[in-house]
């Protein structure tokens, strides 16, 4: 009896296994997914997947479909693709600017969040234009577009030209009341450019774009001080030069520390931010004895920084968003005052006092005196 049962169990396993088997070459990996809105506000989904067959001339196959949801669009794709489409390895999710301008576009990403087989590490990128235009880009001097695009964003984020926001980060920012989301921004202008970051409001709507310099300041205020921070400034007290910029200088940061103090007074939140930067000079176009006049140069950099910080914060406050995550500090340290305003944090932050104080140390000047 026991033997018989064991035997039948083995038979059962052998015959009924295999059910979930999908061989790798039969899978169509949607490595890039694009979402757009056309002029009549119809959703357009596009996807790009690699082709493995050696006989195929093109390395990628691209599909553009109109559908009501992303999952439905996969259905449409499967009608023509010679494999089973999956989203388990999606690298970049390209979202058209028009889509992002509408509230609750985040819901479109639902299949990525619900299906455990799908990845959460897909990079979210806003495209200034149409995302399927980007998908069709097939440069000859670059590897496959998905690999190229994901590498592009990763390295740009390492240089802090844009933020790298994965779906997981976006979800966190969407649910978090004390912070609004920011995503990388991409433009196709013959070639592909990462232009900076796009800042979204609490409902996920696109609000404003910032370029690399402001993006670096944003990262500093977010206290995300990994990666490289390089700045090129023009000294205010130096002659401009005729053709060549004689007042410019560049530096990168050696060490960055950000400390934040949260206060509440006069019905306003107060954020005092102390930024300490150790810089290494990498370029200096005007004559300056760094050995003697380092204090002066440091002061100059401090002023420049503070000005730019103020400008960015003003800009953000006007847009009534909080990409810095000041709300997290407000909740952590001023919970009593935070609680009533948490639902309209953007407006509250717009009225708050934010002061950034920068302290610069020149750590090194390089090999030239």
């Amino acid at each position: 009896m026991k033997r018989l049962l064991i035997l039948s169990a083995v038979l059962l396993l052998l015959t009924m296994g295999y059910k979930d088997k999908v061989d790798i070459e039969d899978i169509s990996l949607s490595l890039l997914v694009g979402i757009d809105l056309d002029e009549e506000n119809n959703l357009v989904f596009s996807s790009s997947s690699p082709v493995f067959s050696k006989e195929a001339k093109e390395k990628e196959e691209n599909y553009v479909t109109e559908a009501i949801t992303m999952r439905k669009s996969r259905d449409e794709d499967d009608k023509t693709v010679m494999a089973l489409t999956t989203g388990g390895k999606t690298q970049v999710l390209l979202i058209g600017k028009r889509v992002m301008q509408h509230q609750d576009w985040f819901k479109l990403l639902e299949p990525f969040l619900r299906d455990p087989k799908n990845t959460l590490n897909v990079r979210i990128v806003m495209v200034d234009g149409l995302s399927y235009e980007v998908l069709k880009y097939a440069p000859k001097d670059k590897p496959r577009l998905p690999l190229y695009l994901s590498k592009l964003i990763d390295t740009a984020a390492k240089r802090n030209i844009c933020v790298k926001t994965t779906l997981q980060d976006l979800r966190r920012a969407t649910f978090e009341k004390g912070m609004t989301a920011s995503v990388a921004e991409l433009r196709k202008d013959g070639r592909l450019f990462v232009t900076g970051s796009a800042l979204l409001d609490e409902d996920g709507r696109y609000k404003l774009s910032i370029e690399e310099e402001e993006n670096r300041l944003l990262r500093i205020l977010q206290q995300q001080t990994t990666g490289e921070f390089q700045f090129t400034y023009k000294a205010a007290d130096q002659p401009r030069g005729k053709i060549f910029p004689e007042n410019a200088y560049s530096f990168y940061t050696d060490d960055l520390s950000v400390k934040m103090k949260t206060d509440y007074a006069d019905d306003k939140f107060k954020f005092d931010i102390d930024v300490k930067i150790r810089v290494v000079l990498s370029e200096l176009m005007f004559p300056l004895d760094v050995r003697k006049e380092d204090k002066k140069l440091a002061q100059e950099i401090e002023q420049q920084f503070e000005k730019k910080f103020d400008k960015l914060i003003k800009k953000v406050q006007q847009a009534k968003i909080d990409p810095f995550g000041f709300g997290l500090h407000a909740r952590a340290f001023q919970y009593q005052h935070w609680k009533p305003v948490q639902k309209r944090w953007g407006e509250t932050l717009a009225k708050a006092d934010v002061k950034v104080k920068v302290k610069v140390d020149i750590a090194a000047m390089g090999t030239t005196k």
Partner: protein
Amino acid sequence: MNKYAMNGITLMQYIFLIQGAQVGTGILSLPRVLAENSGTDGWVNILIAWGINCFAGWVILLTLRKYPDFALPDLFAHLFGKWIGKLLLLPLIAYYAFFAWIIMINTMLFIKAWFLPKTPGFLILLLLAIPGYLVVQHGLRVQARYAEFVFYLMMWVPLIFLATLKHGHWLHLLPVLKEGWEPILHGLPKTVFAFAGNEVLFFIYPFLKKKQYAVHGMLIANTMTMFLYLYVTIICFVFYTPDGITTLNQPVLSLLKTIEFRFVERVDMIFLAIYLIVVSRAWNAYIFCTVFSTSFLFKKQDHSSHTFVYFALAIVCVYLVKPTWNQTEHWMTLLSNAGMGIMYALPVLLLVYTSGFEKYRRWKAG
């Protein structure tokens, strides 16, 4: 003369058996449950629940200490007589059997969701039954070795979680006790049940070689579980925003999903597959309690045939019932209510009864 001395287990094995019985699939959703009830202060709950459970375990041991050679079935027979003892054992058997089944079902559902959506559930249970049968069939000593080995084998797994810390915001935890104690106490009943597993003490205590360390072992096991829960919960709370964690069913798995190494991605899948080995200790422990009791009922020395029958029945039940997520959750609630009785009420009642019983006997004898 202890009839269980043949299968004696060491103190370490005793600890790992208890700890193994406690850690199941509950941990995967525990941070969410805590956050739902008590917000980011939910982790305080774990500490309180730990205290309560240590106390309950101590009460269990207080009773068992009087009868060092008796497992629960022997104890019942001794206290209530042969027939009433057996009758009283029946609901307990049902509880243990059902508990083991639920853990397996839960695991099966996870496997179905993450790995094998089209494979029928009973087939997955059949897979789980193979190693389970091999372990439980041999008696407690082998099972204890298994629990011990698995613990050491899996010790590195919690380290994976550290990889998520660089994306975390410690600010999420502040301020501590932001809403006071009320929400914390509100979530307590569910947290307390996360420590279920102390009830295997009733069965493994007589096998322990060094009985004088029984309480220490129980405390160590509970503390280890507590640290594990605390560790995972805090990492989840640090990673997820307090507003968003409640939208996830299994925050722990979603958390691991975000980890990517250069050589391997989707750590959640690897973790879940490996975690299967950890959870297997839990159902093995409960199945042992079940078949130990049924063998006692049928006066069988060897419980290997009952183990076989148990697994066969479990598979057939899954084939017939085809459980869903919601059903399992519902059953889990029912079970946790029953568990309250067995983990907290039963030990106290037994303690009171035995002291009365002993007094009566002494009075009768002298």
